[in-house]
């Protein structure tokens, strides 16, 4: 009975178009939100791996290298370099700072490493940063060549990078290690972590090892509740989509009670009627999913923080759409099953 299904969709095109657009907006919101969650992971991965090492050593008992500031004397680096399994070790400084750009104040992590070493800006072929030079993420709203201040120090942006931020869009600012030590620690020769290559087989009790994965997770743990809320919100949006489609299918089935009665009177089974309703609901849901995927790049331009929609979410959406459509069609099932074919004989 596909003919009947499509003919009804054609006749109620406006009704179904509104439902499709509404559902598409809900689906696209779900994708955007899933993209936020993915964005958190992507920016953290880039920021951590952008340091260039395989892990970090920090003071035991403190947090991860990107989330807490626990100063270590520079002698620790030499100690780490001697650890078995470590092929390279460089001091790095990471601390949160507010800086003022021509377009306003921005918070973000300042990341600094030795010239040409780990912790340097993630820009291939870039000469080591000199005093007063900085590499900034796009989200810092600083253009190349512009100056901005961190504390009382002025810096000039020499390059911009994209996608290097943490905690939901806090832009990274890369400066030289000497500038960072002068800016935050009165020029003392200290670091907040030692970035390493290789994998130490043993670590002194005064230090704690964070692999890149652990360092990422440490950052994401700060967003734990936000990520969980986002995941719940995505499921709720799927439910909203089901309710929108369900409402349209339900109203459509109420309007078609007499048609259902006639169809039953001339030999249609309840199963055939329900299949038609389910096909309508799934059709709306799949169209909405397609529109949502099409709308995504447009909507993403209005979202100030980086989005990374996981590919599996895009593959998942049509499946979700089918499930949502089938769930929604249950709203009309009762009409299809319970309608009395005797209604077809009623006049008027």
């Amino acid at each position: 009975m596909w003919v009947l299904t499509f003919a009804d969709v054609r006749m109620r095109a406006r009704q179904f178009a509104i439902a499709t657009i509404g559902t598409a907006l809900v689906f696209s919101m779900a994708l955007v939100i899933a993209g936020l969650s993915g964005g958190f992971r992507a920016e953290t991965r880039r920021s951590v791996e952008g340091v260039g090492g395989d892990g970090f050593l920090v003071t035991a008992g403190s947090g991860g290298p990107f989330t807490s500031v626990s100063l270590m004397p520079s002698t620790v680096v030499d100690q780490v370099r001697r650890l078995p399994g470590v092929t390279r070790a460089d001091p790095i400084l990471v601390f949160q700072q507010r800086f003022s750009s021509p377009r306003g104040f921005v918070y973000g992590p300042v990341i600094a490493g030795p010239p040409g070493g780990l912790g340097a800006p993630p820009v291939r072929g870039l000469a080591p940063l000199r005093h007063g030079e900085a590499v900034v993420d796009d989200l810092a709203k600083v253009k190349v060549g512009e100056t901005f201040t961190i504390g009382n120090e002025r810096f000039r942006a020499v390059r911009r990078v994209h996608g290097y931020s943490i905690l939901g869009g806090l832009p990274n600012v890369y400066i030289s290690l000497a500038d960072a030590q002068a800016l935050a620690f009165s020029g003392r020769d200290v670091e907040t972590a030692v970035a390493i290559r290789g994998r130490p087989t043993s670590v002194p009790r005064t230090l704690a090892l964070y692999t890149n994965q652990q360092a990422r997770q440490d950052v994401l743990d700060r967003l734990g509740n936000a990520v969980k809320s986002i995941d719940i919100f995505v499921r709720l949006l799927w439910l909203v989509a089901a309710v929108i489609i369900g409402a349209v299918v339900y109203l459509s089935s109420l309007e078609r009670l007499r048609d259902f009665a006639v169809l039953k009177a001339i030999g249609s089974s309840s199963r055939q009627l329900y299949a038609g309703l389910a096909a309508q609901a799934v059709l709306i849901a799949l169209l909405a999913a397609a529109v949502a995927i099409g709308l995504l790049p447009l909507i993403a331009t209005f979202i100030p923080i980086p989005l990374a929609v996981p590919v599996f979410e895009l593959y998942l959406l049509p499946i979700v759409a089918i499930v949502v459509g089938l769930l929604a069609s249950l709203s009309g099932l009762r009409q299809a099953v319970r309608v009395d074919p005797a209604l077809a004989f009623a006049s008027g």
Partner: protein
Amino acid sequence: MTVTERSGITVRDLTMEYVSGDYVVRPLDNLSLEAGDGELVVLLGPSGSGKTTLLSVLAGILTPTSGTVGVCGRNPSKLSPDELNDYRRATVGIVFQGFNLIASLSARENAAVPLRLSGMRGAAVRRRADELLAQVNLADRAGHRPGRMSGGQQQRVAIARALALNPPVLLADEPTAHLDHVQVEGVITLLRRLAEPGRTVLVSTHDDRMIPLADRVIELAPRISEDTGPAEELTLAKGDVLFEQGSRGGRVYYVEAGRMEILRVQADGTEEHLIYVEPPAYFGEMGPMLGLPRSATARAVTKSVLTSYSVRDFRHRAGADERARGSGG
């Protein structure tokens, strides 16, 4: 034309009761009839006489309270749900009073609905649907939706749909109810033409213009007013029931002495008191005058003496009483 085990329609002692509101209605009471192969049979009767109920029973949509039905040798009330769906598609074709076409489908698609329900696909569906529309002289309206067709054209599409799987029985419920006289002629002529060997056409109507074309006419509400018997006096003992709700009768009663109760039997078997009737008053006139079953039961509360009249004599006495009251007052 005859009814055989595999053709035509037989109805034996069919009674149909259903609950309407709080009380039980019995639109069909011990009805028996036959419609042979190739016959055009007209079920004639006013609204409420059970025509549509009978068609619904024959279509397998309602299950009778008692009695048996045979349509081409099959009793629809004995079929499983799947067999019943098949029966409604292939054994009986139904033409509804209100056309009941699917508004979103074209004439061709409407005619094709039973074909698709039966699993037919592809070009064969279109070919058969076009044949059907040609059969009802609507080949040039195949692409039109119901909203762009006249009532007569819609009814002919409905007939085409009913004929889709070439069922041996065609049931038409008030097929001329919503049509003007020009359209009525076309539909009646078509139904007459369709009653041919291999197909029985049963038409319910209150339109007696169909009578001359019918092979057989079955009146579902006998003309009770034909009861012209003389006035009779009868005596009831306390508790005697004069007539029961749902029964048919042609007499109107005057209470000469005693007290009668008019009551309605509810669906759950309890009795709802309506009114007491005492001299000089009458009751029971509406059923015979309108040709409808009694809508309530009459029972003697005390020993009562009644005079029963035919409708004609009742009118005569009621008129005389009215005149007497007028001259007296």
